[in-house]
C-alpha cells in the first residue's frame, strides 16, 4: 500500500501547516460553548484531467482543493464552519462559527489525540495516477479515442477523458481520534456519437476505481472502453423506441444495481429513518420484499470506486447487510444518526469535500446473487422489456423511484428480439421489491464510473446486481 506509506511519511503539517497541538487547540475552541462532540476535518486534494476530442488533446487541467471544516454536535443540532484560508485567525473563526450552535456552560475538556491507522487498505494502486507522467496518461486517452473512432465509419465524433485524483484527509475529534487516509481515484471514459441516415445517437463506456494506471493494462484496456462506447452508439442507431406501459421487466446484470441504489439504498440511509421521512422508517425487522432479495452495501470491496479505508468521520467501514431475504436488517449510519438512534456505526458518513457536513451515504450497493440461470429468467417472459444499459435514477422519500434505461431489447416468447432505446422505468419501492420474482446467479458490478448526488453533495459510488426479473413495472417508452 504505497499511498498510505507515502502519506505517513509526509506528515499533515506539510499540507496543512498545523501541528497536533494546533489541532487540539482548534478542538478546544470548537467546544468553547459546550456540545457533546467536536471534529476537525482537513482535506487536500489534487484533481487532474485530460480531454481528447476532434483528434487532438484539447485541454488538460490541474485543480487543488485545500481546506478545513469544523463541526460541533449538540444533541440533534450541528454547527459547521469551514475555511480554505488556513491562517489561525480564519480557522479560529470557523471553529467559533461551529461552536455557535451550542450554548451550555463550558467545561472544556483537554483532548488527548491518539493517532490511529486505518485497519485495512482497500486501494489497489501501484502506478499512482496523480504521479504518473502526463505523456503516459495522454497515451491511455489516445488509445481509447482511436479504438472508438476506428470501430466503424458511422462513428462521427469521439470524446475521451482521463480524470484522476488523490484525496488526503485527516480527521481529529474530541473522542481523541486522529486518523488519516490517502484515497486514489481514476476514471477513463469515452463517448461516441454515431450518425446514419440523419439520425444521431451516443454511446458511453468507461472504467477505473481506486486503482493505479496498471488497471488499464489488465482489468480493462482503453481499447475495450473505446470500442464499447462505439458499439453502444451504433446499436442505438438500429434501435426503435421503447414500449410504453406495464409489463414484465428483466434487468441485465451489472449497472442495473442502480435500481437497488435508488429503490432501497437511499431510503435505508439512517438520516431519513431517524427523521421518519423514509417509507421504511417503521419497517425495521419487517418484510418489505420477496424472499429472493438480499442487499448489502460494502465499502470494503478492494479497488472499487465507492470503497474507502475510513469514512469521512474516521470510522473504518463495514460490509453492511441492509435487507436479508426480503426483511430490513440494517441502516447506513453516520455518527449523528447512530448516536441519536443508539445504533452501531457502519462507516457510511461521507462528504463531498471540506465545505460539507458528513451525511449517511452509500458506497458499493448490490443485490446478492440468487440461483436462477440468466437464460431461464429471460425464457420465463412471454412479452416484456429487457433493460440493458442504464443512465441513472432518482428516488424520493415516499419510495417512488425512477431509473433511466438508455438501451434494451424487447422480450418476445422468451427471447430477446428488437433492440429498443430510451425509457424511464418508474415504481414504488415496496411494490417493486415484492415483485422481484427471479434472481440470477450472475452478480456483476457497474462500470466504476458512477457518482451519487444527495443534498447537493456528489460522492463516487458503484452498484451491482445479477440478472433480475420484476413481474410487472411501468415502462415509459414512446410506443
Amino acid at each position: 500500500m504505497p499511498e498510505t506509506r507515502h502519506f505517513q511519511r509526509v506528515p499533515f503539517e506539510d499540507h496543512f501547516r498545523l501541528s497536533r497541538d494546533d489541532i487540539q487547540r482548534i478542538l478546544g475552541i470548537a467546544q468553547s460553548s459546550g456540545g457533546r462532540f467536536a471534529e476537525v476535518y482537513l482535506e487536500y486534494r489534487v484533481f487532474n484531467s485530460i480531454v481528447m476530442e476532434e483528434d487532438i488533446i484539447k485541454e488538460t487541467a490541474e485543480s487543488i482543493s485545500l481546506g478545513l471544516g469544523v463541526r460541533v454536535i449538540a444533541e440533534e443540532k450541528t454547527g459547521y464552519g469551514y475555511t480554505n484560508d488556513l491562517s489561525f485567525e480564519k480557522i479560529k473563526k470557523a471553529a467559533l462559527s461551529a461552536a455557535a450552535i451550542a450554548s451550555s456552560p463550558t467545561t472544556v475538556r483537554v483532548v488527548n489525540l491518539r493517532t490511529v491507522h486505518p485497519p485495512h487498505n482497500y486501494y489497489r494502486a501501484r502506478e499512482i495516477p496523480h504521479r504518473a507522467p502526463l505523456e503516459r496518461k495522454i497515451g491511455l486517452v489516445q488509445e481509447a479515442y482511436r479504438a472508438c473512432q476506428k470501430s466503424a465509419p458511422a462513428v462521427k465524433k469521439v470524446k475521451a477523458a482521463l480524470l484522476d485524483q488523490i484525496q488526503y484527509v485527516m480527521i481529529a475529534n474530541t473522542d481523541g481520534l486522529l486518523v488519516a487516509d490517502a484515497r486514489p481515484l481514476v476514471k477513463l471514459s469515452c463517448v461516441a456519437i454515431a450518425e446514419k441516415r440523419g439520425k444521431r445517437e451516443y454511446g458511453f463506456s468507461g472504467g477505473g476505481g481506486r486503482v493505479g494506471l496498471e488497471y488499464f493494462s489488465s482489468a480493462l484496456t482503453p481499447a475495450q472502453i473505446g470500442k464499447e462506447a462505439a458499439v453502444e452508439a451504433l446499436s442505438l442507431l438500429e434501435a426503435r423506441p421503447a414500449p410504453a406501459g406495464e409489463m414484465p421487466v428483466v434487468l441485465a446484470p451489472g449497472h442495473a444495481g442502480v435500481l437497488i441504489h435508488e429503490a432501497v439504498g437511499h431510503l435505508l440511509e439512517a438520516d431519513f429513518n431517524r427523521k421518519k421521512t423514509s417509507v421504511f422508517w417503521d419497517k425495521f425487522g419487517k418484510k418489505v420484499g420477496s424472499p429472493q432479495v438480499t442487499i448489502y452495501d460494502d465499502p470494503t470491496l478492494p479497488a472499487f470506486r465507492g470503497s474507502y479505508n475510513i469514512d469521512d468521520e474516521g470510522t473504518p467501514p463495514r460490509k453492511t447487510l441492509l435487507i436479508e431475504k426480503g426483511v430490513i436488517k440494517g441502516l447506513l449510519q453516520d455518527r449523528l444518526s447512530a448516536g441519536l438512534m443508539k445504533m452501531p456505526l457502519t462507516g457510511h458518513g461521507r462528504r463531498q469535500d471540506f465545505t460539507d457536513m458528513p451525511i449517511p451515504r452509500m458506497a458499493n450497493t448490490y443485490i446478492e446473487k440468487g440461483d436462477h440461470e440468466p437464460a431461464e429468467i429471460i425464457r420465463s417472459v412471454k412479452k416484456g422489456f429487457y433493460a440493458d444499459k442504464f443512465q441513472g435514477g432518482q428516488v424520493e422519500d415516499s419510495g417512488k423511484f425512477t431509473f433511466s434505461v438508455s438501451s434494451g431489447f424487447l422480450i418476445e416468447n422468451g427471447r430477446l428480439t428488437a433492440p429498443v432505446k430510451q425509457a424511464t422505468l418508474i415504481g414504488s419501492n415496496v411494490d417493486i421489491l415484492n415483485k422481484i420474482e427471479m434472481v440470477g446467479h450472475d452478480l456483476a458490478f457497474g462500470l466504476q464510473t458512477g457518482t451519487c448526488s444527495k443534498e447537493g453533495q456528489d460522492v463516487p459510488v458503484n452498484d451491482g446486481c445479477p440478472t433480475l426479473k420484476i413481474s410487472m413495472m411501468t415502462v415509459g417508452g414512446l410506443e
Partner: protein
Amino acid sequence: MTAKTGPADLLTLAERLVRFGKASGADEIEVGIGDGTEFAVDVRLGEIENLIEAGSRSMGLRIIKDHKTAFAASSDLAEETLQRLIKNAVKRAELANKDECAGLPSLSSRAIDPAGLALFDPHVGRLESKAKIALALETERIALSDKRITNSHGASFVTNEGTSVLASSNGFLGEFQKTHCSLSVGLQAGETDERVEDFWFSSQTHFKDLETPEKIARTAVERTVRQLKPRKIKTQKVPVVFEPLMTAGLMGFLFSCTAGTAIYQKASFLADKLGDRIGNDKITVIDDGLLPGKLGTSPFDSEGVPSRRTVVVQKGILKNYLCNTYAARKLKLRSTGNADGSGVGPNNFYLEAGPHAPSEIIRSCEKGLLLIRTLGHGLNPVSGDISRGAFGLWIEKGEIAYPVSEITISGNLGEILNSVEMVGRDLEFSGSICGPTLKVAEMMVAGEGSR
C-alpha cells in the same frame, strides 16, 4: 498566506498572476478569483438542525501557449501554490495539441457597468443570524400549522455574498460583487405508506424580492396536499400542461441543446439547424445577462466578454447558439458572453411569456395531464428524446379531477417545440432558467396496462 479579502487585493493578486504567467512562458493567460461568504440555517420540527457559516476563496486560470490550452484551479490561494500551478500549466500546455481555435477573446471595446445591474444588496450582509434563523423557523411553523402536513423535511434560509475578479493578458480587468438569498421548505403529507411530498422556495439577489414566509409555507402546503390519494391512469397519449417549474426543466434541456460546445461536437439534435424552424411561432427563447437584479445576471462572463441579450429562438426560428469564445470560433460565430469555466452556461435563459392565464390553459383541456413534478433524468440531447418519471394532476373537462402518480411521460424536444398550443403569461424569474405555463398538444403518458 494572509487574510486578504478586499476586491482591490484580489484584483492585484490576479494581475500579479497574469504577469507571472507571461513571464513563465504563457502566450496568453486569464485568472479569475472568487471570494465568498456563506450562511445557511436548516431548521426542522421547530428546532435548528444545522447552522453553517463560512468563507471561502478560489482561483481558476487558463493558459494558452502556441495555440495549446491548459486549465488550473485552486482553493489554496498561497502564492507559491498558484505560481507552481502556473508553471505546471505551461508545461502541460506544451504536451497538448495545437488547436487554431484556442485562445482568449480579444478585448471588447464595450464594458458593462456592474452598478446598473443591481447585483448587490447590502441588506443581505446586514441581516442578523437571529433574523435569518427566525425566517426559517417562521416558514416551517406556518406550514406545520396545517393539519394535513404529517412530516417536514425542514426549512432553510441561505445567504451568499461574493466578489468575482478577472484579469487577462489581453488587458481585461473586471470585478463585481453579487448577493443571493433563498428561503425554502419541504413537506410531507399522508401516512407512511401513502406519503406524498413537495417543497417551495424563493431565491433572489435582493432580500426585498423574496416571497414572505407565509407565501412560501402556504404554497408548499398546497403543492404537497394536492397530491394526496393519487390514482393510476391508463397508458395513453394526451395533451400535457407544464407548470412553470416544469417548463424551466424543459428550458434547461433546450439550453444544453443550444450550447455551442454541444453543437460543434454534434452532441445536440439542433446541430446544423441555425436559421431553421425548430418550433412553432409560439416559441421565443431569450438568454439575457443584463436583466437588473436577476439570478443569472452579470456584467461579463468567465472570459471577460461583456454580457448581452441573445435571441436564441424567435417565433420558432433558431437564431443563435450560445457560445463561449472557443465554440464561437469552431462554429465561425461570435461569443454570446456565455463562457462558464471551460464550458458554456446560461445567463437568464427563458421562454418568453404568452397571452394566456394558467387557468385558461387548464380549462382548454377536455382531457389532459397537468405536469407538476418529474423524477429522474432520461434526457438525450443527441436525439432530443425525453423520458421521465412524473407526478401530475389529471384534467377532465377543463377541471382538475384528481392526482396521478407512478407514470412516465415521454416525447421528443423537437416535436414538443413544434406542438406547443398555448403559452402562459405567468413568467417569473425564480431561477436563471425559467418559463411560464405551457401546453403541449400530445405526449405519451405511460401508466397501467400497455397500449
